[in-house]
């Protein structure tokens, strides 16, 4: 007996239009993107638990580590279960995480916040992040960069929504102080449960053999784009997978270097910038991060994934170098350069599923994506560590202002150059890793011949 949640029950009926799937993906990504706005809760949580910023920062760190781990270990399950079951699992984990964290706040038990938001919620983040990706690639085999860019843009946009919403909730429930944290957690958890569940129920996978009208799958390899399929187990045995891991790691490390320190950084570079203006700068970077995900990922459909990453990493390195050399000369120059870096950071996240599909085919692209996201977890630790440690050492040595960041800016240039070289080394996957044709007729494969079925 098949369950309502099974993949077989989510196959789109004839006449289903593919543009009906992106809102389901966006509903999930906009919800879990709240994690980027966790900092809004930081000060209220420090006050509530009479704790340190470091102790509260651990909540976010656990969540990001769990995101990477659950995406890596549950990627194959997500791929096999289909979008409805996995999106619902993500919805339950994410909202239960908020509710457990709310109990932790109400009962003054910080470990429950670690367990709830960090551990349980983090699993929801990992499952939710990869759950719509392979389905989007199946619906948009002709424009995978645009499709994944649209969904992953939601992850960047989630913080833009959650940040003002959380501020408003904290004011409503507790006058802006720590009294309103538990109620805010419960409210957010319930909102996300409804929105993500709605997304799960509307999710549909294309019927086996479906292809967009007028589009036929390529029959020959073209550049980096393969027509074969590689399983997740085999993908991690290839050199190209690990080179791409290094590319993502370097791009994320460099982006986080700015993102982590954005507010104090602009105030140290320009004494005329106060805290309110710095908050505007952080908002601008979030917009650049979100926009880059959609614009650059869509562009990669036209110019190719490898060239796109050459731009992210090469131009990104030049931007970092210019900030290091001439960043203090003008606020406008500083803002433009850092916004460009953050747009490349977002673009790197959004383009990577399409890059994986080019290299490994569509058979298990979601599971492979999950394994690659461990690079994010590693960069989430390395990026802030580099910037914070160097800033602390420079402060101890008597430096101040922009001089606090010079060394880390040059290190980031080096990190991006390493990523650039790794990207140059990515080659089409050797045929010995390809699946035989029999497996390639599996209904999870995207590159199938055009047949009748759903329309555009």
């Amino acid at each position: 007996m098949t369950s309502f949640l099974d993949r077989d029950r989510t196959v789109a009926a004839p006449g289903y239009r593919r543009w009906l799937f992106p809102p389901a993906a966006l509903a999930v990504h906009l919800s879990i993107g709240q994690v980027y706005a966790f900092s809004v809760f930081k000060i209220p949580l420090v006050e509530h638990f009479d704790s340190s910023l470091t102790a509260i920062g651990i909540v976010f760190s656990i969540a990001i580590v769990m995101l990477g781990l659950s995406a890596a270990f549950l990627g194959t399950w997500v791929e096999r279960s289909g979008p409805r079951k996995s999106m619902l699992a993500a919805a339950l984990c994410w909202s239960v995480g908020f509710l457990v964290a709310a109990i932790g706040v109400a009962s003054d038990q910080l470990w429950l916040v670690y367990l709830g938001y960090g551990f349980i919620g983090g699993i929801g983040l990992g499952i939710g992040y990869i759950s719509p990706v392979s389905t989007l690639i199946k619906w948009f085999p002709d424009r995978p960069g645009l499709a994944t860019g649209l969904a992953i843009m939601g992850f960047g946009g989630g913080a833009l929504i959650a940040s003002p919403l959380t501020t408003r909730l904290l004011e409503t429930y507790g006058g802006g102080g720590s009294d309103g944290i538990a109620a805010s957690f419960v409210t957010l958890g319930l909102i996300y449960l409804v929105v993500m569940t709605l997304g799960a129920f509307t999710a549909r996978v294309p019927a086996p053999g479906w292809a967009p009208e007028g589009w036929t799958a390529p029959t020959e390899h073209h550049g980096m784009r393969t027509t074969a399929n590689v399983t997740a187990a085999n993908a991690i045995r290839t050199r190209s997978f690990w080179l791409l891991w290094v590319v993502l790691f370097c791009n994320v490390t460099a982006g986080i270097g700015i993102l982590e320190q954005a507010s104090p950084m602009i105030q140290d570079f320009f004494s005329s910038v106060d805290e309110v203006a710095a908050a505007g700068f952080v908002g601008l970077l979030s917009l650049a991060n979100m926009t880059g995900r959609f614009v650059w990922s869509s562009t990669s459909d036209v110019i190719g994934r490898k060239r796109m990453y050459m731009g992210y990493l090469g131009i990104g390195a030049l931007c970092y170098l210019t900030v290091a050399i001439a960043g203090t000369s003008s606020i406008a120059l500083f803002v433009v350069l850092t916004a460009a870096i953050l747009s490349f950071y977002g673009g790197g996240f959004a383009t990577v599923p399409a890059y994986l599909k080019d290299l490994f085919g569509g058979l298990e692209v979601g599971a492979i994506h999950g394994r690659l996201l461990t690079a994010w977890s590693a960069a989430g630790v390395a990026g802030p560590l580099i910037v914070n440690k160097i800033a602390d050492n420079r402060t101890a040595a008597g430096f101040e202002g922009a001089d606090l960041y010079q060394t880390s800016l040059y290190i980031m240039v080096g990190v991006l150059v390493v990523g650039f070289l790794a990207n140059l080394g990515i080659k089409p996957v050797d045929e010995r890793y390809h699946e035989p044709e029999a497996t390639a007729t599996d209904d999870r494969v995207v590159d199938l011949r055009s047949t009748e079925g759903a329309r555009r």
Partner: protein
Amino acid sequence: MTTTSASTARNAGQPPEDRLAAPLAILLWVVVLAALTYGVVSTLQKVVELFS
């Protein structure tokens, strides 16, 4: 057969979740676009402070 009756006939054999799929997806488009607009406008208000 009119468009309505053709649609009714086509939907008759479908499970309820399939009949609701398209309207729910359209509703979800409205919800996510409204939420994104709220987020972008709120952020732009802060950005204005940077240059004012």
